[in-house]
């Protein structure tokens, strides 16, 4: 909210610190001042009043009180001496009926007659303008002025425009013709009726729902309570008799109403945060005083005040030792009392309770009713701390038990996996946790399997991502212009129906890189201490076989023991086309929850044999569709423990070979842990392997 420096100054006899200095003091003790700007002879301070202090500090009076507590300067309440006219009685003009006490805890009204509506004086117009309000006429301006001054929204009605309670009263009393006794008008605070409408001051039309509180005369709503006045009872240049309303409305009722008709005003904003019902009287008297002074109106005697349940100040017991313990600094008691008094707290009971040693340890504090934010000792401690100055609190390390922090294994394995992938040359990306409606269509996710957002900022963020792959592919599309080969990965949460979230780890390489990525997965898993890795044919579910993310012939399930932990394969060309990706893309997609359960730091050193190894080569012709794993398995089984390693060094398919055949060439490395193998031994083993391999039909070892 914007405040006028000169206006704030008007509460003080002594000079305030200069605007910059004042802004700094407010920032350090009350609220951040986001801007200080000179306008004409005045300065504006844009103060970010904290939301819990709206009840007392969306007003110049409230800020003046803060300044007084911070600087120690005394401030004065604005003048409000009204000369009530004993010939006029407010209750002869207007009566008020509040239908819902809960929605309207207090309603005060005053009547001012013989008002001359016109321009307001320059000083009022200037202050309103500097605070961002547009001057309208003296009556309306005064209502607004008092709102900015006290924080209490006010409303003014033209009394003569209200429906009268008893339209015949005028005729019944002929004596009054020379000095006509006014009719008694009735103001009713009630919820809107089905189908009711109102045209507001700005000539907008609103359909009112039953949960919206209105101010009505006997016939129709004349204002949306706490939000905006109606056109029908507008103050205009012909207005003679003004009814001032200064009421307290329930914050939830106003909040709901303002939301449902989508209308926020200076008044609704204040009511939404809650206001002190005791404030209405101060504000209405101040406004009546100003109207009387400025328009020459006559203030009728008495205040119409519907206030069935008076709000009384709260009492809080404050243990000074607790204050010391919570703030970590001992503030002298006199200082504490001084701060509280400046903020208009009262120390009740005169004398603080005494401790055994005679030291007063506990004080009883009475909270002014305008401090809606204060109800606990901690709230008082905050008041003391901030006014005293947080900058005076020393930095002191806590004295605590030496508790070694627990290791977080989830994070440990995440870090480990990321490091391994980074070492292999992959770069980490972070993508949004969302996919778009368009993305859903491209990947043909069903609505039912996705978690949908009620209030997305746009359809780009309509669903939570069910997989990391869609956004990783988007990364490829974006980067393909600048990079030839792209290797990226992401580790993050994915979301499936029933709001289940789990971590996934996916990596992408551009190009036909199935075997490269398979090697990456092997390495990753090995480095995470997982050994029994194997790859199974991709078994699409019946649904997937109609449409799949994966290239149906170039995809494998990654398995550890008997558990499937993820997939590895090329992305379906149809999807790549849709995403305008010009290269083949190979992806691995791993369930990280499963992976981190399998991961292990156990690792055992394998002794290095002291005895030499020997290498024999073996080339074999096999049918084209034969899996390399089958050949490897046969060699391993036949060779037994003396084979240390088998290394596939060539796969060849070509014209020289018989049709439908491929040639595989291996280095077989023989080694024993306990002796040097003789060539006879090795030759025997090699022969055995060959004979075993050749038992398979169509397998032919090349000699």
């Amino acid at each position, binding site marked *: 909210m914007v405040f006028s420096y000169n206006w704030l100054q008007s509460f003080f006899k002594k000079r305030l610190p200069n605007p910059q200095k004042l802004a700094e003091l407010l920032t350090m003790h009350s609220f951040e001042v986001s801007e200080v700007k000179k306008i004409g002879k005045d300065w504006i301070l844009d103060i970010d009043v904290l939301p819990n202090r709206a009840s007392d500090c969306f007003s110049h009076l409230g800020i003046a009180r803060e300044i007084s507590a911070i600087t120690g300067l005394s401030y004065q309440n604005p003048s409000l001496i009204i000369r009530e006219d004993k010939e006029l009685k407010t209750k002869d003009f207007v009566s008020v009926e509040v239908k819902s006490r809960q929605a309207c805890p207090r309603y005060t009204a005053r009547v001012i007659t013989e008002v001359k509506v016109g321009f307001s004086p320059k000083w009022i117009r200037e202050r309103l303008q500097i605070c961002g309000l547009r001057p309208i006429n003296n009556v309306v301006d005064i209502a607004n002025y008092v709102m900015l001054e006290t924080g209490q929204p006010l409303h003014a009605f033209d009394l003569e425009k209200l429906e009268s309670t008893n339209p015949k009263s005028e005729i019944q009393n002929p004596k009054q013709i020379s000095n006509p006794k006014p009719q008694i008008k009735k103001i009713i605070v009630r919820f809107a009726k089905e189908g009711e409408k109102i045209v507001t001051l700005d000539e907008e039309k609103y359909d009112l729902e039953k949960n919206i509180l209105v101010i009505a005369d006997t016939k129709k709503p004349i204002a949306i309570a706490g939000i905006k006045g109606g056109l029908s009872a507008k103050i205009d240049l012909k207005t003679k008799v003004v009814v001032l309303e200064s009421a307290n409305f329930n914050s939830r009722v106003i909040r709901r109403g303002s939301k449902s008709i989508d209308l926020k005003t200076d008044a609704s904003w204040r009511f939404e945060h809650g206001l002190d019902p005791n404030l209405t009287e101060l504000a209405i008297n101040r406004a009546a005083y100003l109207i009387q002074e400025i328009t020459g109106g006559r203030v009728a005697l008495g205040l119409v005040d519907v206030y069935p349940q008076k709000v009384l100040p709260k009492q809080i017991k404050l243990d000074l030792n607790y204050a010391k313990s919570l703030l970590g600094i001992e503030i002298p008691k006199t200082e504490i009392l001084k701060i509280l008094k400046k903020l208009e707290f009262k120390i009740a009971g005169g004398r603080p309770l005494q401790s055994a040693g005679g030291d007063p340890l506990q004080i009883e504090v009475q909270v002014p009713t305008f401090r809606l934010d204060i109800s606990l000792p901690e709230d008082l*401690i905050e008041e003391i701390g901030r006014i005293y100055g*947080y900058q005076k609190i020393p*930095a002191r390390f806590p004295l605590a038990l030496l508790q070694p922090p627990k290791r977080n294994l989830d994070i440990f394995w995440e870090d480990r996996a990321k490091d391994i992938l980074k*070492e292999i040359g992959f770069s*980490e990306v972070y993508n949004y946790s*969302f996919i778009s409606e368009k993305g859903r269509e491209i990947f043909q996710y069903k609505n039912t399997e996705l978690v949908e*957002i009620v209030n997305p900022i746009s359809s780009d963020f309509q669903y939570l991502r069910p997989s990391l792959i869609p956004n990783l592919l988007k990364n490829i599309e974006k980067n393909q212009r600048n990079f030839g080969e792209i290797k990226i990965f992401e580790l993050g949460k994915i979301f499936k129906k029933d709001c289940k979230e789990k971590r996934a780890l996916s990596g992408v390489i551009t190009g036909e890189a199935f075997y490269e990525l398979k090697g990456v997965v092997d390495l990753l898993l090995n480095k995470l201490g997982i050994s029994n890795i194997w790859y199974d044919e991709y078994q699409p579910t019946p649904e997937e076989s109609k449409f799949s993310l994966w290239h149906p012939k170039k995809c494998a399930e990654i398995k550890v023991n008997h558990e499937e932990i993820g997939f590895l394969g090329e992305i379906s060309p149809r999807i790549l086309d849709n995403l305008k990706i010009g290269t083949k893309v190979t992806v691995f997609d791993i369930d990280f929850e499963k992976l981190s359960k399998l991961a292990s730091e156990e690792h055992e050193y394998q002794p290095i044999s002291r005895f030499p190894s020997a290498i024999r080569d073996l080339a074999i012709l096999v049918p084209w569709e034969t899996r390399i794993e089958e050949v490897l398995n046969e060699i391993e089984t036949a060779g037994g423990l003396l084979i240390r390693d088998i290394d596939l060094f060539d796969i060849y398919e070509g014209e020289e070979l018989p049709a439908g055949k491929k040639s595989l060439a291996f280095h077989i490395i023989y080694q024993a842990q306990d002796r040097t193998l003789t060539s006879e031994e090795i030759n025997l083993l090699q022969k055995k392997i060959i004979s075993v391999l050749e038992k398979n039909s169509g397998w032919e070892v090349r000699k």
Partner: protein
Amino acid sequence: MAKINLKLLKKEAQKEIKKTRDLKGLNEVFNKYLGKKGELSLILRSLKKLPKLRRAKIGSEVNELKDFLKIKFEQKAEEIKEKIKQKIEEKEWIDITAPGRKPALGHLHPLTLVKRKVEEIFQSMGFTVIEGPEIETEWYNFDALNIPKDHPARDILSLGKTLYLKAGGLMRSHTSSVQIRYMEKNNPPFRIVVPGRIFRQESTDSSHEINFYQLEGLMVDKNISVANFKAIIEEFFRRFFGKDTKIRLRPSYFPFVEPGLEVDLICLSCQGKGCSVCSQTGWLEMLGAGMVHPNVFKSAGYNPKFWQGFAFGMGLDRLTMMKYKINDIRLFYSGDLRFLNQF
């Protein structure tokens, strides 16, 4: 038989050794004198005919000469090899100013790097790192944190910009949601930090994102104070930025703490003098904090009479942007390798 002139032989051999330029030539000379059919072998063979005494004398002289020449040959061979090496080395000149060939390395995301650093600093001060779910209930995200329904804070604080799920629940709008989850299952005293992704219903621009990262901190014990918080957070900034920094605390409001605090860090660019980085204020707004509200302890099933604690929440994206001077938060979630490859 020819007169055996060993002296002359020695002289000639030395002369020839000296003359040779390459290993091949040296080998020829070697064969001429010391080979199977070389001069010295011939002499030794011719000695058979001589009387025993004389044979022994000349024989030992020949052998001496043989040993002498062998050393000479070896020395010469070394000399030649050395020259060859020198020649090769001269030919093998490289241009050391040509650019090096870098192996293709991978890169970790800057937010990962900063998250690790932050975790490490807090762990060294005894804080355990905890995580929590990204999909939350209204209870953990709001109600349990003293933000009841219809509370203005649910709208007015940016906490109000929450993403809700059609199936019920919401995307957590702060990591504070983990406070209650942790306290329900653990008893004080404890110290935790909670890094994690959070979500806001927000239009994106250079300083706002729809998802970003926060780090929550919570320390609860018998006598934890604002002074303790000040020490911990100052130490954190010192270690994070690797230099002596200054902070200031000022009043703020979060429903789940009381007193509520805002922590400003002295501007790293101007040391508080005021510059464009800190919009001339000299200070950078870093995090929200405060002393845990008694109602939060109650939600967690603790008796607020027995426990005190501080809580804080800071944006890891902002910290990362400051550390690497990144000016647009959206780069983090762009997947742009021109950006990511710089880390």
